[in-house]
């Protein structure tokens, strides 16, 4: 018995340093990616010209924009749909149509719209260019000639957007979540890359900001404020680091792999050419862009997937652990599904920066790191307690996982403030700096555990979305 314990101790002592070094190496690469992201974003932001006012953008290129259809898939949104549609109809853009796709709602979404806009059934020819569930009817409004409502059988968000793509006749379409809010000038600003280089650009994404805490009136964010909930505050820092600074960096290398489904502008013909959104994708927005990169690179075409930070889409984030865990597990499953579908792109020079940088960072950040970092949470203290590794290894692990994270989060905050000029209130800056430090002690670890649970869901073959409760916007 004693010999057996000694043997186990000996085995652990022999393999522990190797495991510890692997854990450290993966986390160092993970941090290195974020560090590179910060550096590239800093250069890109440094080269940017100061942002013109929205009215100046209108004067400058308003008449050079391409017509856009805004596609708003809606499922059981009866409480907010009218306000959302009014908000979309009041976007400042020269030629815009709003197409609401009622995805077989079981509540009164369609009836509410019909009553508010006096909808009437209409006939409209459309090409079935991408697959979707059958359309039950099309409705137009004599009050709002730019509004079209598509009523279809339930098929999920991707399926609903596909129906919208078929029905729209404009060269560009914009996807928005029916429960998100766009700034009035967001569409004009997000369309700028299509004005600058209409032959090259195939998709453009804008910034997603956390609306919790902001005051909203008539579908517009009237005053920007930080959320009261600490959990939402952590997400503000996270959105800033990953969704703004990260996307600026990847975009400047044409390796942007995600344009959020909540707000993106796409060339219709390109999306149709790749078969539209995949209805079976868990993260349909990630899947679309990765597929776009894969196909266009395989065809040897020049193209650009661009991120512009100025246009803002406001969205509610979960303020309690349950829904947030559900969201993160779903994101993880989506990332894994897309990664394994496109694993051939990994570090493959044929796919250029999308393969060498884009899909590789998905592999490191979304696939490998959660597993390795959580392995570290468990194994490192055990190894140390068993005296199998030296304190230096533990210290380096703590340094890389907890302490260096402070630098990365605050670095993103500094860049966001200096480069984009978004946070001007001193109190907000200080509060966010506090959140940026705190998030490394608990929130980051929790996130990684949710990602492991996402891995587990993925391996079990779970595909459903689950329910995402909304708290609603704070009225002004």
């Amino acid at each position, binding site marked *: 018995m004693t010999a057996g314990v000694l043997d186990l101790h000996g085995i652990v002592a022999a393999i522990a340093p190797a495991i510890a070094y692997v854990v*450290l190496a993966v986390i*160092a690469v993970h941090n290195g990616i974020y560090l590179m992201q910060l550096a590239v974003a800093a250069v890109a932001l440094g080269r940017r*010209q*100061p942002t*013109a006012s929205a*009215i100046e953008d209108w*004067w*400058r*290129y308003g*008449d*050079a*924009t*391409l017509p856009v259809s805004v596609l708003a898939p809606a499922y059981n949104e009866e409480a907010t749909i009218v306000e959302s549609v009014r908000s979309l109809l009041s976007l400042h853009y020269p030629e815009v149509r709003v197409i609401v796709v009622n995805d077989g709602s079981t509540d009164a979404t369609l009836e509410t719209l019909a009553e508010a806009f006096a909808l009437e059934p*209409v*006939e*409209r*020819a459309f*090409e079935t*260019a991408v697959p979707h569930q059958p359309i039950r009817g099309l409705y137009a409004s004599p009050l709002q000639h730019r509004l079209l409502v598509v009523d279809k059988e339930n098929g999920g968000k991707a399926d609903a957007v596909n129906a919208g793509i078929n029905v729209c006749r404009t060269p560009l379409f914009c996807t928005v979540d029916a429960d998100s809010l766009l700034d009035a000038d967001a569409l004009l600003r997000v369309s700028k890359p*299509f*004005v*600058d*280089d*209409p*032959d*090259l650009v195939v998709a453009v994404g804008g910034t997603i900001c956390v609306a919790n805490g902001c005051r909203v009136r008539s579908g517009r964010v009237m005053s920007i404020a930080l959320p009261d909930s600490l959990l939402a505050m952590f997400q503000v820092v996270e959105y800033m680091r990953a969704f703004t600074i990260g996307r600026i960096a990847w975009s400047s290398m044409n390796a942007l792999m995600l344009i959020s489904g909540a707000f993106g502008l796409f060339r219709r013909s390109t999306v149709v050419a790749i078969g539209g959104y995949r209805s079976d994708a868990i993260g349909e927005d990630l899947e679309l862009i990765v597929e776009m990169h894969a196909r266009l690179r395989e065809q040897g075409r020049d193209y650009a997937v661009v991120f512009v930070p100025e246009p803002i889409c406001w969205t509610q984030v979960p303020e309690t652990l349950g829904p947030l865990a559900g969201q993160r597990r779903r994101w993880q499953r989506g990332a894994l599904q897309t990664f394994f579908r496109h694993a051939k792109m990994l570090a493959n020079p044929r796919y250029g920066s999308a393969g060498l940088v884009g899909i590789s960072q998905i592999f490191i950040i979304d696939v490998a790191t959660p597993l390795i970092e959580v392995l570290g949470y468990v194994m490192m203290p055990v190894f140390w307690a068993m005296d199998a590794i*030296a304190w*230096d*290894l533990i*210290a*380096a692990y*703590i*340094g*890389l996982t907890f*302490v*260096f994270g*402070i*630098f990365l989060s*605050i*670095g993103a*905050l*500094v860049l966001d*403030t*200096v480069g984009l000029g978004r*946070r*001007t209130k*001193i109190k907000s*800056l*200080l509060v966010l*700096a506090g959140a940026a*430090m705190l998030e490394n002690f608990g929130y980051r670890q929790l996130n990684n555990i949710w990602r492991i649970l996402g891995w587990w869901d993925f391996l079990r073959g779970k595909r459903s979305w689950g329910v995402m409760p909304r708290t609603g916007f704070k009225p002004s």
Partner: protein
Amino acid sequence: MTLLQGVWWGSWFAAAASVAAIVVLVVWQSIANRLTRRRATRKALLRSRLIVDWLESELPDSDKLEADDKKILVELGHEFVNTIRGVTLSRALNVLRSLGMIEFCLSELDARHQARRVHAIELLAALSGADARDDLQRKLSDASWPVRLAAAKALIRIDAMPDPERLAAALDTHRHGHSRELRTLIKDIARRDPLRLITLLDRGVNEHIRVLIIHALGRSGAYQVVASLLPYANDPSVDVRAETFRSFATLQHPLAVETIHAGLSDPAWEVRTQAAIAAGRLRVDESIDDLAALLEDPVWWARYRAAEALANLGDRGRAVLAERVATGAPSGPLAGQVLAESRPK
């Protein structure tokens, strides 16, 4: 120090440095906020003086302006030029001239920030008119594309249009050559002097510029360009041919009827689609049979535009669509939808 100790201490150093950066940022942001507030207050004051006081009473002494006031006045002048018209604008421009803004705009043409150069160009064109031609032409060689574009637009606005070839050379760069802003600029030229663009087109420019010029001529509403556009319906480039038919659809001149009719059997679907639109707009009755044949085109857009054109051609065209519906032809559902969609309300 070992590598592992280096990682430990390096992480703490980075974290401490980032905290120090936040402290610096807070101080910097406080100063920046104060300066921004002061500038906004001054801008509001100058705006109200310009609109309310200076327009109505004696002009101010330019020496009494604060150091940054002229920079603010350039922004305000630029705003006025884009938002005010008529007598009020003329009077506002007179005030700005008397404040020495022409000289200031000339000095701002070489400002470091691109936005300031653009504002100065636009205001200078409004203040000096044709006198600013040489300075604006110089800015056609600016290092920044938006500045060159602003200079080109300003030159066109003051009726001092440079040679279109020079314009093309200034604006057709690798990165910005396909910008849709260029399209707007050429449309401005076409509105003022379409024949000059025809001359340029006939001189043999590259495919991209041909598309832009034909597009602009189509939007110019100048019927005299139709004859010159006819040969481009047989251009080797699909984009040029499609754009030519798009222009015929906009100009709606009977001189293009025969060419449109021929375009319905073009090998490229993009061209057939545009020809079908043009046939519908011009109500080319002799195209009914070809449009009917196009209803079986392999490409949906060509079929749809053909059906739409037939619906536009009155009773004979609608009868073709109705017949497709009645006989259950493959194009029947589309014909039915287009008939319903185009039904007179």
